[in-house]
């Protein structure tokens, strides 16, 4: 059974009908890549799962429980971590506090800090600095690390490679791979090379609808689908 499933999800933002029927399944332990052009509704889908945008139709099920009605903090408390597109590092908090604020129970950070520092050794060195003083790559690491502080079963990661240097992208991919050994990941990724190397499954969104999906291994050889939904223009 899949850990997360969306059926015919619709979302309006103001008067705009952004999601017009998104179906997707994320099996436990998988990395699923959500692909599509700019404006296809990928970020909105993640925000709808988190409850940050109210869903106007369809169902969102996590671990057999309907979560479409829940508030964002309740969704998070079920064990869903969110790494947003803009990273949303808190500027007035130190790096250490940026992690601590993600604690859902006392001791979460103490439990996970070694794992986080193994993944991103930079963060140990920067712990006392304010969030603003980080580079783009370090901010991305911190945003991912923040989602690892509590015991999450599913991570929603939005564009982890965006705007990063190739060396940092490699490090980020390595990190996501090692996270996925015990956490399920739903990944939004514009960079097809990154997505294809990380994910086992994919789903493609176009104009607010899910239009294709399946095993990543099949998509890599399917030039027609790639050109149709992901190619330029």
């Amino acid at each position, binding site marked *: 059974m899949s850990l997360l499933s969306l059926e015919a999800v619709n979302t309006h933002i103001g008067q705009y009908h952004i999601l017009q029927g998104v179906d997707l399944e994320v099996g436990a332990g998988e990395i699923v890549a959500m692909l599509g052009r700019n404006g296809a509704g990928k970020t909105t889908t993640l925000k709808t799962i988190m409850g940050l945008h109210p869903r106007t139709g369809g169902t969102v099920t996590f671990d057999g429980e309907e979560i479409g*009605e*829940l*508030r964002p903090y309740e*969704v998070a408390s079920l064990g869903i971590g*969110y790494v947003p597109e803009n990273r949303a590092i*808190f500027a*007035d908090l130190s790096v250490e506090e940026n992690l601590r604020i993600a604690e859902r129970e006392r001791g979460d950070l103490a439990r996970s800090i070694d794992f986080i520092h193994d993944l991103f050794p930079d963060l140990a*060195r920067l712990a*006392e600095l304010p969030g603003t003083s980080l580079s783009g790559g370090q901010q991305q690491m911190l945003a991912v690390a923040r989602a690892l502080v509590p015991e999450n079963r599913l991570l929603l990661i939005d564009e982890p490679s965006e705007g990063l240097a190739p060396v940092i992208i490699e490090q980020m991919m390595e990190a996501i791979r090692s996270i996925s050994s015990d956490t399920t990941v739903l990944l939004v990724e514009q960079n097809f090379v990154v997505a294809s190397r990380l994910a086992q499954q994919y789903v493609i969104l176009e104009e607010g609808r899910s239009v294709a999906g399946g095993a990543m291994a099949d998509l890599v050889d399917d030039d027609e689908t790639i050109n149709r939904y992901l190619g330029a223009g």
Partner: protein
Amino acid sequence: MTTATAKPSLGDRWSKAWTRDRRRIIVAAVVAALLVIGLGGLDPEDWFVTIMRGLATGAITFLVASGLSLILGLMDVLNLAHGELFMLGAYLGWTAYIRPDTTVDLLAPILITIAPFALWALWRPLGRKVAALGSRWAGWLLVAVGLGGWWWAWRLFPLAIWDPSVYAESPITFSLAFDIGTLVPLPAGTFGGPALIAVLAMLVAASIAAVGLVSFNPTGSPRPSAKGIGASIVALAAGLSILAWREGLVEGLFAMNPTLRFFLAGIVSVIVISAIGAGVEVALIRPLYDRPIYQLMITLGFGFILIELVREVWGRPEFTMPKPPAFNGIGEGCPGQGIGDLFSGCSTIEMFGARIRTYNELFIVGIGIIVLVGVSLLIKRTRIGMVIRAGVQDRHMVEALGVNVRVVFMGVFAMGAGLAALGGVLAGPSIGLSPEMGGRLLLSALIALAIGGLTSFPGAAVGAVLVGILQQIIIRYGQTGIPLPWLEEPFKPSPPLVPASTVLLMIVILLVLPNGLLGKAEH
């Protein structure tokens, strides 16, 4: 720590600060110089008094400004009723201090009302059904029915309340009597029907109102948290116990040391106004988070309602709140000598050749400093503070991390209201009580915020102190006059120039520093 983050030398830090904050440093220096010049025109023995009075005014202004600033920073809400919460805080403080019998009588129905509201989540399924009717009017109808029923039940409760139209029972008379040293009890009331019916009716009415309010935003789990259930049970039990043991409680409070009762009154006022603040956030602000203009209007209107309510309950004329006796002594051994005599019971002490009032200028300033340090520590060191700092920047992300931001908002609103109430209770004995006292102070507080930087907590303190000292300097010059070469008589600033001078200071500072002294640039 590794070498990469080695501490820079003092000189380095200063030169960095200079390049980054040149304007601020110059403005701060100019303001400081102006204050020195302003004080320099006064007689030497006046300096100290004027500064202390300025700090006292600043402390009261700060207590209002700090809450405004926290609320504005975290929720983008400018609470125009904040001055009226300050005013109501003063009136409630007076009541708990001078009329403990009435206070005890009021507590029971209020606590009983809180009990159903603490079970907020429990009403969500019902609220959802009401929301499903498709019209917001259904929710408002329930709120109205709840309020009506509550009023009916309220009238059944026994309340020893004064009649402001009878001089012998007016707050003015009670204040005078207290200063002479007597506290006359009002005749105790009795239930206007079976007590059980009154209590049940109040519970039911509050539940109906709660369902109506929940229906405006019924999403979320229908299971009340353990804390909510606990709070509900505690409130109900406390309300019922107060009803049962009224006489003993009242007797104890009458026999209590009046200074202690003053502190107790402060605590009661802060708690009640905090609760009212929480209720305002839930009922008035929360449905309007996407409509800032409506929030301004509704808080403004709520303030007007509070003013009229206070006039109705406490009567029209202004009256004083007696000082706690520990700061009101005269006669032998008074005035005290030096700060060591602060708790000697004298109303004034001599310091640096000047006579300082212990309550107005020392006690109030002391409490202001304690609040400044306490709230700063809360913001810097605690988890709540961390959430507030993060929420100022991005409340959606904070919520997506698993923090119930709504509860934090409610808490901060309650805390801001509580600080205003504390200011009101403290200000009561020094500036007296009047329904308009809040509006005047809100203006000072807003100017202080603009000067200090709207959402900066230290900025609120700096701005409040500047505004306070400036006001007191102008007031002092109003008495002594400024000799100007082209005028035959010394120029005496008239009272309207006191607030005008603070507006002028604000304008000048904002022209040079649009974000205030310590504010951050708007994003």
